[in-house]
């Protein structure tokens, strides 16, 4: 009878020399107490070594599923045909029997045999000492554990943390070098620093021309806009910088090369970061964007650590100094930390940033947990939650408008008179009436009223909500924010709207020509405040 024994170094087949002893199960153990008696009991027939850890992992993984690997099958075929084989796993035995037609046994005697072999393993296999087995076992166990945990090298968040650290470092370095270029070249051509504001373009320009006398001959259209180029060429002629030698220019140019290559690398790094973020934390990226997500992970230390934080912590991650200062002095704590730079928060009006930041932080905490601890990686959860958040933002913004223009049920909410209130019309519920000098005009301009009336409506913040409802057939934007913006920029459409009953409007319909200007300005100011 043969015994199949698996070691971390490979498969071993032993032959039982004294089969008679097998009948007395209890005493089998005694046979293996010393190496000598063990060798009398079993003998090593063949040993199939694993070439490397990868092969070992594959063979063992197959074994765990209950099937023999190719290597094992070949090995058995070569050595065991015609014999009964003692195996540790009866399921494996059945499959070996099926596929290779080798009879397998598994019973108490076999278990005792295996115990014995295991205890004397290093003695029985001459090439494999204890010292050799230990590191093999260690290596194999780690590989097996990683395989079980589906540890994939793609999902290591260390890359993110390092990449974002490098990105920040690069930015600093880039800025330092660019400043240095400006200063250095400024000795030769100081005007250029004011003409070309962008660091990269400056470096490119310097690289192209070298000495400023070349500026006249060269074509800068690829780098600079036409007017800038013209300015440059002009300034090059009348520049008050000193001459510099070619050697100096050479060095300046080298520095420019450095700047440009760093800038290029930074762009590459950013792409790399984005792609890694989408692999490692797709939900987080969908919700706040790759950059903010990476900063959050880096601040938390690791994705797993970040997942352990509650939403309230995520909200003020990055504002710790302000937080603890406020807690100590019993002041109001900060409302946002790193999250402030997320696009959803950027879009909100200052009043709503706090609320949105809190909602966002709650969803971010959920998304991070999905990414860190969940199986099946896609960003559906992040995308859904983002839509929810945007809807909530719209509701929040809409509430303010709705409150002022009145609801379907009752009268609009009238604000309490406060003489010091600066916003809107100051303390006045209705702005002060001033004499409209346009009314002096003798020539009657018939179209003025309706047009201006329409414009009036559209410019007023209060009117926006109702205006929206009216305008929906015309414009396609669902979001009120966008339509607000559109209204500031473009004088919108035709005068199709029916005249609205509105206190102000009624009173001012006559004073159109001068008033609209003033009102527009005021409402523009209002809008600017709310849209920051």
């Amino acid at each position, binding site marked *: 009878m043969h015994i199949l024994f*698996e*070691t*971390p170094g490979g498969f071993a087949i032993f032959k039982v020399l004294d089969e008679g002893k097998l009948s007395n199960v209890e005493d089998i*153990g005694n046979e293996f*107490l010393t190496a000598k008696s063990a060798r009398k009991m079993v003998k090593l027939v063949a040993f199939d070594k694993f070439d490397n850890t990868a092969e070992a992992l594959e063979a*063992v993984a197959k*074994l*765990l599923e209950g099937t023999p690997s190719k290597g094992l099958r070949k090995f058995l075929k070569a050595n065991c045909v015609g014999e009964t084989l003692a195996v*540790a*796993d009866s399921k494996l035995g059945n499959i070996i029997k099926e596929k290779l037609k080798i009879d397998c046994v598994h019973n108490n005697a076999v*278990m005792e045999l*295996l*115990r014995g072999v*295991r*205890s004397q*393993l290093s003695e029985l296999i001459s090439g494999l000492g*204890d010292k050799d*087995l*230990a590191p093999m*076992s*260690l290596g*194999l*166990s*780690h590989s*097996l*554990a*990683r395989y*079980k*945990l589906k*540890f994939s090298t793609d999902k290591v968040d260390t890359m993110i943390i390092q990449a974002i650290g490098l990105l920040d470092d690069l930015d600093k370095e880039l800025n330092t070098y660019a400043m240095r270029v400006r200063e250095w070249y400024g000795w030769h051509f100081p005007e250029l620093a004011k003409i070309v504001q962008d660091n990269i373009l400056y470096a490119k320009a310097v690289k192209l021309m070298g000495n400023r006398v070349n500026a006249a001959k060269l074509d800068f259209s690829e780098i600079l806009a036409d007017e800038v180029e013209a300015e440059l060429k002009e300034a090059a002629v009348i520049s008050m910088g000193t001459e510099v030698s070619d050697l100096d220019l050479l060095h300046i140019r080298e520095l420019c090369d450095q700047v440009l290559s760093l800038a290029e690398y930074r762009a590459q790094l950013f792409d790399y970061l984005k792609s890694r973020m989408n692999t490692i934390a797709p939900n987080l990226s969908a919700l706040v964007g790759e950059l903010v997500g990476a900063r959050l992970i880096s601040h938390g230390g690791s994705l797993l650590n970040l997942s352990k934080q509650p939403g309230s912590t995520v909200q003020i991650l990055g504002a710790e100094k302000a937080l603890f200062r406020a807690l100590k002095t019993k002041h109001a704590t900060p409302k946002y930390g790193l999250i402030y730079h997320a696009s959803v928060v950027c879009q909100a009006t200052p009043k709503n940033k706090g609320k949105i930041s809190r909602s966002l932080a709650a969803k971010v905490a959920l998304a991070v947990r999905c990414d860190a*601890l969940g199986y099946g990686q896609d960003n559906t959860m992040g995308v859904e939650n983002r839509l929810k958040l945007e809807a909530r933002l719209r509701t929040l913004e809409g509430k303010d408008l709705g409150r002022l223009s009145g609801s379907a049920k009752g009268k609009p909410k009238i604000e309490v008179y406060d003489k010091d209130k600066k916003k809107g019309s100051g303390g006045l519920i209705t702005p002060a009436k001033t004499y409209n000098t346009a009314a002096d005009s003798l020539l009657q301009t018939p179209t003025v009223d309706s047009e201006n009336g329409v414009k009036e409506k559209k410019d007023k913040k209060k009117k926006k909500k109702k205006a929206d409802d009216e305008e929906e057939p015309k414009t396609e934007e669902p979001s009120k924010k966008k339509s607000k913006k559109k209204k500031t920029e473009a004088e919108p459409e035709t005068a199709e709207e029916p005249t609205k009953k509105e206190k102000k409007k009624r009173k001012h319909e006559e004073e159109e020509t001068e008033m609209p200007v003033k009102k527009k300005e005021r409402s523009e100011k209002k809008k600017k405040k709310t849209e920051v």
Partner: protein
Amino acid sequence: MYIIMPSGRGGGGSGRGLARGGEGGAIRGRGRGRESGPGRVKSRESESGGIKGGSKVLVTPHRHAGVFVAKSKADALVTKNLVPGEIIYNEKRIFVQNEDRSTVEYRVWNPHRSKLADAITTGVDNIWIKPGVNVLYLGASSGYTVSHISDIVGPEGCVYAVEHSHICGKVLMNMAEKRTNVIPIIEDARHPAKYRMLVGMVDVIFSDVNQPDQSKILGLNASYFLKSGGHFMISIKANSIDSTIAAETVYQMEVEKLQMEELRPTEILHIDSCEEKHACVFGGYRLPRKQKADTAV
């Protein structure tokens, strides 16, 4: 505050007596090549539970080889850090400077987190784990106790840590990456056949799985991997086995089940100090019949 004192125990096996740190006297467990006497020189220690910084801490070897006691205002059980500079769970460390100016680092072992530490402070006779032995640990969880056992057995010994859960497994793997004498196995301890190719024969099995069939699990693993004359320790949580009957009865039942598997208990220790209704059973496997049960191997 961890005080090494006997706890008055009613009923249940041999509640052992004093387990005082071996002061000066018997200097055992030199397996790690430690220098002369207890490192008594001024210790510069970092935050240690109850031990204030800067005060003198006396670190003496415990009766159990490989374990040490740190004495100052409050006593603490410590093990010598196998990987100096690394901590696993924000545990406190004690630094002791020797006469030759080298620093030895010890990690504090918290009995509230680790059943083995609890058993030691309660006063177990013999834990069977000492420098150089191979240990199979079933139910390793995140590896807290495993790390301390790895400190005790040192580079010559080996700890096979079996844990089924994936989340704990990840933490265990991280810990094992730093310590080369820990072999992580992410498998169900009910099926030792699945990790037979990774484990050699061990001297001690430590089981902390808290499953209703844990005696059978221990027996099966012992039949695969525990050498004859080897020892075991199993921690029994009465509520895990059967929460309706009295704890004493549960312990008795478990002892009987163990005896059927050729595992002969030599000590039953109630470790109620840190957790309720817990007991630890220590014993031997396939001990030679002629001698009495509590012979140390």
